[in-house]
């Protein structure tokens, strides 16, 4: 009995210590990323425009098609599901409100974040992880180049710019999907649908969506690069870390989404 209690205490202690270690490592990374991304350029540090641009292409431009297609389908699904309920009360025109508001406030940012986490978050983890395994990170340090400044900052800036841009695209295409369904299958007049959407949407809705999008961009970058830097073995661990980066960034995105939604609900 005493033995099993002891084991339990040892187990709890080990888990707590390893959790605290993760918190410490992530805080260290956030601190460094913040310094190299925002403070260093202000005190004369280098801004890597070429890397930022190339990351923006990888993160943003290359995701346009997949974000558009998925948002279009989600717009249609959302309109269909709302039509199913609204037709019972003869208020089909409110499809426009539902699609518009739920996409801009919630689904646009979250769909984009999940796609970006799957595409870019995983690629950050894999890129940095395999560089770590091949001693490339050590090589950068030995040349006096800070790996966070060289690798993470351009990714962070690219994500902070491109995730909100993709979110706006997703909002627009999603609404378009709802519009296409409404004017074809439900027979709502195009003009009324557009008018109704514009009446329903407020600038506040779009802004709250964009605030979420910016923070999701930051979260995905930190989680992806953190997992990359934690690789200490070879190819197998790169794979394992890549998977965990996707799972944990989606989890963190949902947690922060809950936080922001609650915040905006009570304070706007």
């Amino acid at each position, binding site marked *: 009995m005493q033995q099993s209690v002891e084991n339990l205490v040892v187990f709890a202690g080990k888990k707590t210590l390893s959790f605290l270690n993760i918190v410490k490592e992530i805080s260290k990374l956030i601190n460094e990323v913040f310094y190299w991304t925002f403070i260093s350029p202000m005190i004369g540090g*280098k801004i890597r425009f070429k890397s930022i641009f190339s990351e923006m292409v990888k993160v943003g431009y290359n995701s346009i098609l997949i974000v558009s297609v998925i948002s279009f389908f989600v717009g249609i699904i959302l309109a269909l599901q709302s039509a199913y309920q609204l037709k019972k009360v003869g208020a089909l025109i409110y499809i426009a409100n539902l699609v518009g508001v739920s996409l801009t406030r919630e689904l646009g940012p979250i769909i984009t974040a999940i796609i970006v986490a799957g595409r870019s978050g995983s690629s950050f983890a894999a890129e940095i992880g395999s*560089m770590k395994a*091949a*001693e*490339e990170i*050590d*090589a*950068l*340090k*030995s*040349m*006096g*180049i*800070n790996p966070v400044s060289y690798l993470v900052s351009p990714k962070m800036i690219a994500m902070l710019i491109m995730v909100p841009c993709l979110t706006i695209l997703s909002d627009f295409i999603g609404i378009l999907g709802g519009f296409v369904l409404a004017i074809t299958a439900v027979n709502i007049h195009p003009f009324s649908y557009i008018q109704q959407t514009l009446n329903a949407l407020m600038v506040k809705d779009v802004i709250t969506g964009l605030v979420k999008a910016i923070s999701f961009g930051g979260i995905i970058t930190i989680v992806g690069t953190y997992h990359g830097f934690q690789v200490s073995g070879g190819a197998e661990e790169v794979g394992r870390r890549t998977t965990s980066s996707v799972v944990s960034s989606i989890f963190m995105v949902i947690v922060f989404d809950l936080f922001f939604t609650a915040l905006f609900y009570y304070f706007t």
Partner: protein
Amino acid sequence: MEKALIIKDLVAGYNNKIILKKISFDVPKGMITAIVGGSGSGKSTILKHLIGLLKPLSGEIITKGYDLTKLDEKDLNKYRKSMGVLFQGSALLNSLTIEENVALPIREHSKLNESTIKIMVKMKLDLVGLSGFGNFYPSQLSGGMKKRAGIARAMALDPELIFFDEPQAGLDPITASGLDFLIMKLRDLFKMTVVVVTHELHSLFTIADKIIHLDKGELIFDGTKEEFKRSENPKIVNFINRIPEEENYCPEDYFNILTAE
């Protein structure tokens, strides 16, 4: 003789395990110092300390009057600009061409214009016999060429001190001996101080001016190549004659190894 590095009572380890036990030696300027030892002897660990990637538990590494182990990241970067490293797997950045790899430290640490950087890169590539390969990616080169490109990158900022981590690993004997000549060229032509971590006997006796032998984290030899050959220390005799050592476990140790988690 002037010393490039003085290592005093260096104790290092990870996770409560001591890997280097009070190591002291020095690296003479303008010479090739080889650090040898079997696998797990701590030679790669000592290299990581000499290039400032790891901090020791105690001890000092003195260069030009300051202690490396006490420097902050900013001052450490100043030291790193005065040295170059060739990693075991070359560690070239795979996303950049050879030319961009060699230019990377120059671009990061100087404000030279592009045409000057291009000329400098060409000179470095020419020095290691890779002219014409600038536009290739590391994945398109053979193991030996990658090592040469790694040397060109290590030389980019004209360092006074250059480190090699097992430069002959994974190379055929001819390519490896070509690399040995290149290392000697760096010492003779550019008066560089070279530190090589190796376990290749042939290369050791060709290039080394001074040999440090580590065994299980302890320094068991510090002297010239001739003294090394004459040494009567059984571990060194075994090393030179390639005689494997039996691992002697007492029954309790063996039981612990088998039953440990």
